[in-house]
């Protein structure tokens, strides 16, 4: 009887929490109304959406009107970066400043702004994956419309110096966006403490379903909408509001924050034990972002003489689900733009395996992965050069 498989890919997505499913269910059934309608069904839906918005806001230190609900992290990032740039077009602020380690949702938005005539600038990143403040000082000038830097990198888990970057952006009057998709629930995100203007989150990273996200929009921050047609969400995001998903996001955020300190301590212990044990058994393994502050749930490592694709397949065949960080739609493994930007040599970058612990991870999982890892590495290395 084979042992049950191990899910070490919480940075990719997480299971929907039972409490979240329960909270959503009435809004697929009796409470099915459209929150724009005048009648009782509409009022019921409106009240639920407003309450959800308020709860989501509270989780981010924000007012309800500062929460814009989206279809997920990608839309949130697109709306923030592209919408934030487009609305300032022609105002003398034409530059969009971001980093080469962003999620493609941000990078592609910046590229799109450049195609539309914007001036795209990428900040430098050091070898541990931290954005250079020196480079930020150089590039953040009064012509910057929007700067966007992720809070936690989705491949390495490295935490970026958001406080300092926000201050630099504010100094030149630029709007500051942070992609907090990997950060929510792992570090403190509070709009009252940190003066970012825009901040994206994605529900399925912490127990809500795929298909719901939000962007915090500080009062006074203008965005050009991506969609057209309705007045929902103050016209920022037209489209019939997704009532059950709004409730799912609110519920998942509250649960996550309630458990945050204990869960982060647990994850950190699991991750650190995994990292130490793997390094002990494979001493030449390289942990990306080591030495930089890192979120507690992620471990990205490369073993010289192996490749990500073969490692992921071998791990999966042994029942261990990991990721290479950047999978494309077909599921094939492609080179990591993040590790490349950090100056990781290609042969090492192409060997990266991302393990992310979370809700499902237990001590026993870590033991099992550690136990099977050396043999996998030995096998992979014996194959080196064969392909």
């Amino acid at each position, binding site marked *: 009887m084979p042992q049950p498989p191990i899910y070490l890919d919480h940075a990719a997505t997480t299971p929907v929490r039972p409490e979240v499913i329960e909270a959503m269910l009435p809004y697929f059934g009796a409470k099915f109304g459209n929150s724009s309608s005048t009648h009782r069904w509409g009022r019921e839906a409106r009240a639920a959406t407003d309450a959800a918005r308020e709860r989501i806001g509270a989780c981010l230190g924000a007012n309800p009107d500062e929460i814009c609900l989206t279809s997920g992290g990608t839309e949130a990032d697109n709306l923030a970066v592209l919408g934030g740039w487009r609305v300032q077009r022609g105002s003398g602020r034409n530059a969009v400043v971001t980093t080469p380690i962003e999620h493609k949702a941000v990078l592609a938005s910046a*590229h799109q702004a450049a195609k539309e005539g914007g001036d795209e600038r990428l900040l430098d990143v050091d070898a541990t994956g931290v954005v250079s403040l020196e480079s930020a000082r150089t590039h953040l000038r009064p012509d910057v419309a929007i700067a966007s830097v992720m809070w936690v990198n989705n491949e390495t888990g490295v935490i970026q110096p958001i406080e300092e970057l926000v201050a630099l952006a504010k100094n030149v009057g630029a709007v500051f966006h942070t992609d907090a998709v990997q950060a929510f629930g792992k570090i403190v995100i509070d709009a009252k403490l940190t003066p970012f203007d825009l901040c994206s989150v994605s529900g399925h990273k912490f127990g809500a379903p795929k298909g719901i996200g939000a962007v915090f929009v500080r009062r006074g921050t203008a965005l050009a909408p991506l969609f057209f047609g309705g007045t929902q969400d103050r016209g920022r995001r037209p489209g019939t509001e997704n009532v059950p998903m709004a409730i799912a996001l609110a519920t998942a955020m509250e649960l996550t924050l309630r458990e945050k300190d204990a869960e982060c301590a647990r994850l950190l212990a699991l991750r650190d034990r995994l990292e130490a044990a793997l390094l002990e058994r494979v001493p030449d393994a390289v942990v990306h972002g080591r030495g930089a502050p890192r979120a507690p749930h992620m471990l990205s490592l490369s073993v010289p003489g192996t490749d990500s694709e*073969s490692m992921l397949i071998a791990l*999966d065949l042994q029942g261990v689900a990991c990721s290479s960080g950047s999978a494309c739609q*077909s599921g094939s493994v*492609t080179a990591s733009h993040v590790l490349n930007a950090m100056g990781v040599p290609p042969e090492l970058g192409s060997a990266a395996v991302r393990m992310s612990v979370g809700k499902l991870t237990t001590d026993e999982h870590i033991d099992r992965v550690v136990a099977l890892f050396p043999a996998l590495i030995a096998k992979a290395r014996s*194959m080196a050069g064969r392909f």
Partner: protein
Amino acid sequence: MTAKARVLVAMSGGVDSSVAAALLVRQGYDVVGVTMKLFEDGSELPDRPCCSLDSTSDARRVAELLGIPHYVLNMVDHFSRDVIADFVAEYARGRTPIPCVRCNTFTKFSDLVAKADGIDAQYVATGHYARAIDGELHRGLDDNKDQTYFLWGINRLVLKRLMLPVGTMTKPETRALARELELPRVADKPESQEICFVPDGDYVKILRRELGDAAPALSPGRIVTMDGRDVGEHGGFARYTIGQRRGLPGGSGDPLYVVALRPETREVVVGPREALLGTRVAASGINWLVETPPLAGDEVQVRIRHRAPLAPAVVEQVDDGEVSLSLLSPVSAISPGQSAVFYDGTRVLGGGFID
């Protein structure tokens, strides 16, 4: 319970490899499905290097139905180097390449075998219409579908590890089995005839991309008759292949055929149909698939084009990696770059590239 041997099966999403995978699952093997990603799909969108190829999705759905793991292997770099680059270089040299041969030789039955080793798969399976019997390669039972013409270049040692489950079936039988197994989408898929990385058949587009419009192979040149008469202009010799009629000046007299390409002078040589006939085949880059290759004086059958009938021939000379044969009766359009594959009945002896 003894662990069943692991088989890595290459699944393209088509009916043949889907049925191959299904048959192996039915036989109780530990089957792992893979789809090779060989080139970027939609590379005209620079921000979207992704590959939501329908065929990959079909393979994944079949694997899911069969309850086997399925992975996409990124083999873009190697395929580009081993197959596409050679394809382009061959046209530039005035030859007519068969990329499928090199794909089988390098990609499927070398790189993929290395991947199989990496996951401790003892066997590698594909949906080819051919049979691997006792470490030798035989033609598939369906004469209409036999694909051994493309398989002569593979490492002989791989044959012992090769499983070709549909090689004993006819295509209609394969389709019927796909329907019976209710494999999603694949049973009635049309046959793929084109080269996979030239889906619209316009290989000149690939040559332009790789060589540039100004390349000699794509530059205008003269069309001349065998006795040196200039009969017109062409738009690049790489657009022509031996035996071709299309794209030649018409008019009075007998129809003209391309009988030779002269890359050094960029000339396309034309002549009457009879000029295409030949009785001598010289091939190089020979690979043998049998322990005892034929010797000078032995009689074999040779195929010089996919689906061409087997032609009886006598081996004239066997040198290091080179073979010349004399055909017992003339055949048409023996084209440099195509394969010459040698048979003894159903058994594939080996093959090479026609010079």
